[in-house]
């Protein structure tokens, strides 16, 4: 057991400041454990979101020493013994209280995406898909909606272009639908126009922070951008693919 120093941002949309805490930390603890201990002993009303404590639900996103992370998967031994640990809410979204932010914008984006539309079933009443054809889609579907990628994407974070770009999370959601072997809807025009694929300039910051290690940029956004390019700059190629299969 050792005593560690924490600085935790406390406040609301109206403003706030860092609270200083010194707290005993046991072997094997993650940052979320320490925050819970602080909550139980020193700051009873500290607002935090969490659910699974195992990196599966994407609730405990926050910025720890300046980097967007899941608090439940951030082990204390990541930090040097004397290092003060600074914890802040996600910056790309408006704060509600303390470490809790208003992420409702993301739910609105999801709702705008045209839903899955499957083709007809096979003659035996079953759908067939082969594993190799769904590996990529399954990679995208690992997303736990932690929004860490949204938090680091400069288009949302620094340029505040939430009006124009849905962000990496929803680019891969779009990709997972577009690459779904059973889906028949066409979202490519919307990917460019409504969802703003052109705003992404492939900095890969999103991929770097994804706790699910999804290759957001290389496997998701770039192929989507290619489909957009094919469609709008090489419509004949697209038509050919449409007719002769992908």
């Amino acid at each position, binding site marked *: 057991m050792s005593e560690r120093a924490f600085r935790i941002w406390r406040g*609301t949309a109206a403003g706030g400041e860092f609270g200083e805490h010194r707290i005993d930390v*046991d*072997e*094997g*603890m*993650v940052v979320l*454990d320490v925050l819970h201990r602080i*909550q*139980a002993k020193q700051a*009873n*009303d*500290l*607002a*935090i*979101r*969490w*659910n*699974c*404590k*195992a*990196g*599966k*639900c*994407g*609730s405990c996103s926050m910025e720890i020493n300046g980097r967007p992370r899941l608090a439940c*998967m951030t*082990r204390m031994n990541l930090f040097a013994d004397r290092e003060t640990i600074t914890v802040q809410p996600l910056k790309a979204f408006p704060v*509600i*209280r*303390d470490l*809790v932010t208003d*992420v409702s914008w993301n*739910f609105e984006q*999801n*709702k705008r995406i045209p*839903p*899955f539309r*499957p083709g007809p079933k096979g003659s035996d009443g*079953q*759908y*067939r*898909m*082969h*594993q190799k054809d*769904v590996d990529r*889609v*399954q990679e995208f*579907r*690992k*997303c*736990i*909606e932690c929004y860490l990628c949204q938090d680091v994407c400069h288009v949302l974070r620094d340029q505040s272009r939430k009006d124009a770009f849905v962000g990496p999370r929803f680019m891969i959601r779009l990709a997972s*639908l577009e690459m*779904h072997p059973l*889906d028949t809807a066409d979202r490519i025009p919307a990917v460019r126009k409504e969802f703003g694929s052109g705003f992404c300039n492939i900095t890969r910051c999103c991929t770097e922070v994804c706790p699910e290690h999804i290759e957001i940029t290389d496997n998701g956004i770039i192929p989507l951008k290619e489909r957009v390019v094919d469609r709008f700059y090489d419509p004949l190629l697209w038509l050919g693919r449409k007719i002769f299969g992908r």
Partner: protein
Amino acid sequence: MLNVSEIQTFEHDVLVIGAGGAGLRAAIECSARGLSTGLVCKSLLGKAHTVMAEGGVAAALGNLDRRDNWKVHFRDTMRGGKFLNQWRMAELHARESPDRVRELEEWGAVFDRTKDGLISQRNFGGHRYPRLAHVGDRTGLEIIRTLQDHAVHKGFGIYMECTALDLHLDAGRIAGVLGYWRESGRFVLFRTRAVILATGGGGRAWRITSNSWEYTGDGTAMAYEAGADLMDMEFTQFHPTGMVWPPSVRGILVTEGVRGDGGVLLDSRKERFMFRYIPEKFADETAATEEEANRWLAGDKTARRPPELLTRDVVARAITQEVSEGRGSPHGGVYLDIASRLPAETIRKKLPSMYHQFKELAEVDITRQPMEVGPTLHYFMGGVRVDSDTQMSTVPGLFAAGECATGMHGANRLGGNSLSDLLVFGRLAGIGAEQYVKGLGAAPRIDEEQVRSAVRRATAPLNRDAGANPYVVHDDLQGVMGRHVGIVRTEAELLSALKELDRLKRDALGVKAPGVSQYNAAWHEALDLRSLLITAEAVTRAALMRQESRGAHTRLDFFGEREEWQKVNVIVRKAQDGQMETRAETRPGPPRDLAAIAHASIEDLEAGRV
């Protein structure tokens, strides 16, 4: 005096409380049937417990072994539940789960595939054939996301981070629900003709649990307060394999999929101890030697199943005994070894989130080292008593589905049978609610005085000048349940628990939440205490009443299953005087055709002779 008309109010035909698999599926059904539907949940959408489910969803699709069908699934479920399941529920579940799983595929779910391109299935404890449709070890995520993405286009009301506090009745029927927004602390009133509870279990009354903060037994407690019967509360499932080290992750689940894919349990001498714990009833269908178990794993259909895949109650008790007899691992568990059974690449592919979880939280590489595991409180078989076909509780207009309802799993749930339960009974609850709402005359009315007193009770912890710390009371409760109401129970222990619960109930009435009502964790904790205490007391009293050992309920002072207890369910209810009463209620006999299936030999079933 508080003016009720100033409380923000919504009106619906049906309010679904809980947005896990059961709640989402129920809400989708209600809205598809034209009911004005609302869905409330304590967390954000998509974060409910269902998201954490790992191993898979059980359905007799027969994609890997064509001998599988609903009858075998039904038989496995009854045997796993030690014949205390509601026969009709186990039947409906086994018959309908394949359609519910295929329906998810139609809504966009992408399960792992067989070589023929169909939904793949894996082995799990107590299931005769590979039956669990899965996506690696993140099946729950796939299911909740599919339902969520389907639901958001259906146009019903979704109220996130909104906690329901009390059910309100009009002449004994459901009339509304009072809740509060976690974000602002403001109250909100739902006027509604029917309520579907889908709030999950109450594992947070224990310290070592796989459950998240949401599992405080709210639905169970709200139903109890509204006068509904609870049933089978003594059956709390301890999952045999939770993490044990480091202390801060103690209880976090290690999926049964590890054993389904070949993982073995070892004691400190590296011996596969499960061969020593095979119950007589299962001996015919369990491998006798390691050699036979290995052949089964390799696909030999004449070999029998390894004993690591016995039902959870058996495995959890075996681990407890190994540890108490001094053959445990350094941190008080046993070893679960997959490293020496599968190539590293396969482990990472089939169990990615287990690999990740151990690597990041315990610094253990499961492709090279064994895991240390021990039992963790995981699931409530008990809960709100419902009609098997309509899912209506004993309170008119109040329905329940998913983990907060009871009847489907009897004395012990098989892995994978929960996710399928959510889909089957979520949907049926929606249908039940539609029938009820359509048959209802005038809209029920909410009693304003009731609402005022509920608001006063809820705000007391904020308004009081001083009082106990709610976190400390919760911690105290967890200690009590861990000490006295664990895997093995005795009358003396249970009586001590009741005494301590009395003390805790008094403490809980005087807790203080400092600060304002906006997103105040201490206040939320203070409000959850009531549900936790009701749930804990119901478990304890039911456990005291059932004088036998069956499934997940083990009494050291009443060894083994007793014939007379097979014939009854323990019912818990709030009596007229406000005290908790328990009674043993005789079960109706099973329909003859179902009994024949459940007691048939596997050979007869496979050959279609039953």
